[in-house]
């Protein structure tokens, strides 16, 4: 006889089994239903908007790929975008919102250095991993904190230093530099002058252009006659005027070799009327905008995923030029995050410290679909990744890759060891 007070052995076993199953069910369903939330601090408006547009597209493509391949440790991944207006004050508020209000596991994606600087302290206070895609030297210089890392793009010091051997060997050793009179320009002034000196070259003039300047002709008279290379890193709307006036200054007469950074021309068509004077000149590129003939095997798949054709423009609008030398960083950073989360056995915000330690333990990052720009080495002490760079020449209005540096060309001594800092 069985009743509620005296259940049979079979009923007891059934009940226990059902109980165990019921106990397991919410955990399983819960794990499947709870995605990993990645907060993306996006420059949707403000001075960084053209970069932000492509950062959003690229990381969305990476997200689609990762989720199609099973997510991170079997969990789906979700990205929450929040506009920071490319402003450091709003940037810190966005880190706060993504972390405290939206419950994101990590925050990533910031490009502009002043926004990184303004936001990183808040990330450190909230103890949330903050993965920037900025190329600034701020991380590796030791100016930030243990929670801030740059695993998807090389920093500007590395980029600049790696250019000097090729410039000295191929363009000339007497360099005049035009640089904007603020931090971005100072990075070039300080690091390139050291790097070219190490190659036996010299800076014959360094000409700072005030950020409010709209006409440049009067500065050109300061270019020494023995200049062999004119190194220019003007950015923003003034670039077109700068190049046009430089062309008028030299006319059809002899001119120095021109070398610049593609930051000047990101999201700008190199065949734009007014830029003809750049024909034949050389540029640094992190990731060649125009697909090189010898591109790696994963280049085509990446371009297709992010919607960029072989000329570096949107497949849906040939006038929409990609910020190709920067946007790969979001793709590679999301894949780096996946690798680190899986290595750390990340389950939730309580594991954030373990996650940072797992990131710091990563070193070799081989070329593959996760890293279409190229193989990289991550330095866990400085929280900075290193990789190869490219030099391209404008030929018939198009950037054509002519040289690829070695990774060693961009290496420098550590300025900080974040692993010794407290969390």
């Amino acid at each position, binding site marked *: 006889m069985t009743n509620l007070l005296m259940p049979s052995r079979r009923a007891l076993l059934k009940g226990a089994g059902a109980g165990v199953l019921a106990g397991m069910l919410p955990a399983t369903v819960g794990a499947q239903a709870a995605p990993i939330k990645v907060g993306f601090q996006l420059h949707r408006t403000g001075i960084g908007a053209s970069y932000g547009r492509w950062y959003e597209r690229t990381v969305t493509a990476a997200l689609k790929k990762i989720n199609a391949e099973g997510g991170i440790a079997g969990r789906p991944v979700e990205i929450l975008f929040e506009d920071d207006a490319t402003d*450091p004050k709003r940037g810190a508020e966005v880190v706060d919102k993504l972390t405290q209000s939206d419950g994101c596991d990590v925050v990533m994606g910031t490009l502009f250095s002043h926004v990184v600087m*303004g936001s990183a302290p808040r990330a450190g206070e909230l103890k949330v991993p903050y993965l920037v895609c900025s190329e600034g030297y701020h991380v590796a210089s030791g100016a930030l904190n243990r929670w801030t890392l740059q695993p998807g793009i090389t920093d500007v010091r590395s980029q600049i230093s790696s250019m000097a051997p090729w410039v000295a060997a191929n363009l000339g050793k007497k360099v005049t530099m035009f640089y904007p009179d*603020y931090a971005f320009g100072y990075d070039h002034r300080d690091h390139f002058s050291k790097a070219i000196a190490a190659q036996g070259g010299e800076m014959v003039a360094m000409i700072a252009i005030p950020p409010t300047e709209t006409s440049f002709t009067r500065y050109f008279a300061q270019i020494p006659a023995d200049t062999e290379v004119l190194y220019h890193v003007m950015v923003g709307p003034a670039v077109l005027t700068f190049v046009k006036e430089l062309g008028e200054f030299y006319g059809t007469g002899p001119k120095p070799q021109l070398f610049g950074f593609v930051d000047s021309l990101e999201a700008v068509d190199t065949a734009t009327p007014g830029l003809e004077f750049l024909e034949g000149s050389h540029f640094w590129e992190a990731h060649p905008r125009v697909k090189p003939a010898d591109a790696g095997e994963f280049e085509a798949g990446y371009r297709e995923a992010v919607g960029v054709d072989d000329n570096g423009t949107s497949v849906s609008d040939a006038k929409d030029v990609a910020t190709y030398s920067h946007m790969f960083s979001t793709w590679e950073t999301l894949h780096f995050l996946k690798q680190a989360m899986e290595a750390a056995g990340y389950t939730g915000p309580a594991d954030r410290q373990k996650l940072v330690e797992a990131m710091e333990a990563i070193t070799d990052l081989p070329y593959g679909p996760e890293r279409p720009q190229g193989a990289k080495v991550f330095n866990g002490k400085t929280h900075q990744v290193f990789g190869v760079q490219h030099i391209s020449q404008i030929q018939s209005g198009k950037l054509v890759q002519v040289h690829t540096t070695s990774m060693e060309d961009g290496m420098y001594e550590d300025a900080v060891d974040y692993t010794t800092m407290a969390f």
Partner: protein
Amino acid sequence: MSGAKVWALHLAVLVALFAAQYLLPPYHATNLARVLVLALFAMGYNLAFGYTGLLSLGHALFFAGGMFAAGLPAYHFGFSAGPALILSLLGGGVLAGAVGLFALRTAGVSFMIVTLMFAQAGYLTLIYFNAWTGGDQGFAVPASGRSLFGFALSSDGPRFAVAWGLFALGFLVCLALVRSRFGRVMVAMRENEERSRLLGYNPFVVKLIVLVISGLYAGLAGGAWALLFGYAGASFATIQYSILPMLYVLLGGAGTVAGPVLGAALMFWLIELASGLTSAWLFLVGAALVVLVLFAPKGILGWVREKVWRGLP
């Protein structure tokens, strides 16, 4: 409204703001600390603009001046937050005094343009001395500079307490000032400068004193921002940060003591709300301001004073 009631009302506002940190979720409690610092800035702006009629477009200079007066010694020389805050107060006041000596020779639109030019010169100076200021990139204030009487200002509790304490100090000083004899002289300058001169007041001196007081507020707010939120940068010296306190004051009610904090809070959470709804959040914020100017040109508390409590200071 009697004096006791006025003080009781404003003390109640302070108590409510203090209590809010325990009622709000942590994210919004941190935001309230931000709002209180911005409101301190706007209160100083209100003394110049709302009460004295000085429409400045250069207050970003005083805010950034205080920010760097606190941040630079903390960053380069290891100053702790106490001395750094005092320096920020002085930095804002000295800059305002120096600008005022020149700018107050003008009035109206000319005053706006001259103050704007000074602020732009200040911004370019910060960029020029990049090696010290970090230029456009700025710098993170080290932990040693964010310590006050042994409390880390990077922690939520001490940060809110300091933000509230500085705001409360500014709020009560503002209330006392505008209810004082000098406060009435300020309003007289705004309403009819020539008649005030006829009554024996020197408009230049009165306006210079007000501008210095306004600069003290702005400088202290700038220093507090650097130390409480850990960052100092030249972007805080751009025109945007001269416009923001003006908007807070216009929204909350120019010439009211509580208007700036109301305006700062509404604007902050309006941006928060709008950015969650659309990527065109700046458009929504702009539209809200246009509506306000059309239907309540004196701001919210200005409307309240006109329609409900005529004695609201």
